[in-house]
């Protein structure tokens, strides 16, 4: 049977399937429905230095083969996380990763430093691409200067695995990827959501409270595969691919495009056990095709 254990910049995973931030809560919400130990890693919801109420309702709109959201980083802040959530999640038998957002390089760094102290958090995913809050890092994620500035600040204070999540809402995602690699990122994950909008024509107003939101789901998969392919050719560090993955076959596309691991986001809303099913499906696909490991197909395109 194929060996799909995966290591991303020192982060060891039972398989290459992770759950994307904001789509799997803190893992606890899914404990009844899926064996969490069979997931490569759980990237918990976005955490910021200070508590955030997030955006007003409505925050979601269904679109063709996808959905828009504008949650806006609702969270109780890093202190609350450390004191109340960490104790509940630290013993979940998989990689529990914190997604970190902020409004300034200092914010990011301070939040990351606090999490650096948490023994059982082996990595963070830096969200420099949230499209849904004015100060959600999108501003940083769309310029090479801004991106490397944040990553350098965090790298100084964070010594475990540092993943940086990239935005597809840029002219050249490869340039951004190179800049965060140079700034010390251990890996990049992409794509974050595509900025979109939907209008309720009967009420004559946007379907989302802040007008625009992030598009995710199968609709964006072709854009995600393209971005992963471009970035994998541009950087040496591992690339974690995400964007509309619903099946093992979808995941294989990302591996062939150059991804070392994948994240499942919106798919968790359709099938809470999708991550484990996809992981099993990847293993089965490799067996059917006589591949011993993912390296046999990774980046073949």
């Amino acid at each position: 049977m194929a060996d799909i254990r995966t290591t991303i910049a020192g982060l060891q995973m039972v398989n290459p399937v992770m759950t994307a931030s904001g789509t799997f809560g803190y893992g606890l919400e899914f404990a009844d429905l899926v064996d969490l130990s069979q997931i490569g890693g759980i990237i918990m919801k976005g955490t910021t230095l200070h508590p955030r109420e997030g955006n007003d309702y409505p925050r979601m709109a269904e679109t063709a083969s996808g959905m828009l959201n504008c949650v806006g980083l609702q969270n109780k802040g890093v202190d609350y996380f450390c004191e109340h959530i960490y104790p509940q999640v630290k013993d979940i038998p998989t990689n529990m990763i914190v997604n970190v957002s902020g409004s300034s390089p200092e914010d990011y760094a301070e939040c990351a430093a606090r999490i650096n102290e948490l023994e059982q958090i082996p990595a963070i995913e830096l969200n420099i691409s949230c499209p849904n809050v004015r100060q959600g890092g999108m501003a940083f994620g769309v310029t090479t200067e801004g991106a490397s500035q944040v990553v350098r600040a965090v790298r100084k204070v964070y010594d475990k695995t540092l993943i940086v999540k990239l935005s597809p809402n840029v002219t050249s995602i490869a340039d951004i990827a190179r800049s965060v690699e140079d700034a010390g990122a251990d890996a990049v994950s992409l794509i974050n959501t595509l900025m979109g909008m939907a209008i309720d024509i009967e009420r004559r107003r946007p379907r989302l409270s802040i007008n625009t939101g992030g598009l995710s789901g199968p609709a964006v998969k072709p854009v995600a595969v393209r971005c992963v392919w471009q970035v994998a050719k541009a950087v040496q560090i591992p690339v974690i691919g995400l964007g509309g993955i619903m099946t093992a076959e979808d995941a294989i596309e990302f591996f062939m495009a150059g991804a070392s691991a994948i994240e499942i986001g919106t798919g968790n809303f359709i099938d809470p056990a999708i991550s484990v099913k996809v992981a099993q499906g990847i293993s089965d696909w490799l067996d059917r095709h006589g591949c011993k490991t993912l390296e046999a197909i990774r980046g073949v395109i």
Partner: protein
Amino acid sequence: MGNMKQCKDLRIVAVEHPNDGYVLLKLTDAEPLPAIRAGQFVEIKVEGSPQTFLRRPISVNFVDEERNELWLLIQVVGEGTRHLSRLQVGDTLNVLFPLGNGFTQGVSGEQVLLVGGGVGIAPLLEYAKQLRQVGATPYLLLGGRSASNLLQLDLFRQYGEVYVTTEDGSMGEQGFVTNHSVLESFASSPLGGTRGGARISCCGPKPMMMAVARWAKQHGVRCEVSLENLMACGLGACLCCVEKTVRGNVCVCKEGPVFDINELTWQI
């Protein structure tokens, strides 16, 4: 285990069409269904419907313990629900359940006025049953646009007195539930209610629930409402279905869907 969430294909044992606008699906499973509290809901996956990507939240209409059946009463509005209305006996439906917290659990001897509007009436049937089971006394005040929106009345009558309003007067008193003559008797005793001490549980369109909440507040009656915010995951993970409360934004799917009106920030 008994009330752990599960996500599985349930088998359809009956598909009833009370009228063009609704479909009643009766589902069963090889294993005993988990314990379900009145007011809890399910998220169903609509297969083969290009317009329906996300699951659809549906309230639990009734649980038949003897037959191990779960009933879902669905109003046919869009492409997704039209698809559900075409399901056949023997088909399966993928269901994620039970979700959310239900209505306040009844206590023996208490009186509870269940106020429902439109398809919001559906979950009150199971609630009326559960209240009766613990020895509480449910009263039903049900409103609809017209008689065709008022279903399962015979079943409701098994559990308590039923009062009806319709906007077109085709059944019961004409007007909205808040216009019904019986409502006065549920005011708090100090305010002259002959059934003082009763509390209200309400489910229906938001304007109707706000009107009921306003009345309850004015008449010193405890009141809870069941919200239907747009949601994706149903598990408290996506944070899309939030409602502003005195505790800040909370997920309707996880902290709700039932809230005491004093927890909400409605301007009433």
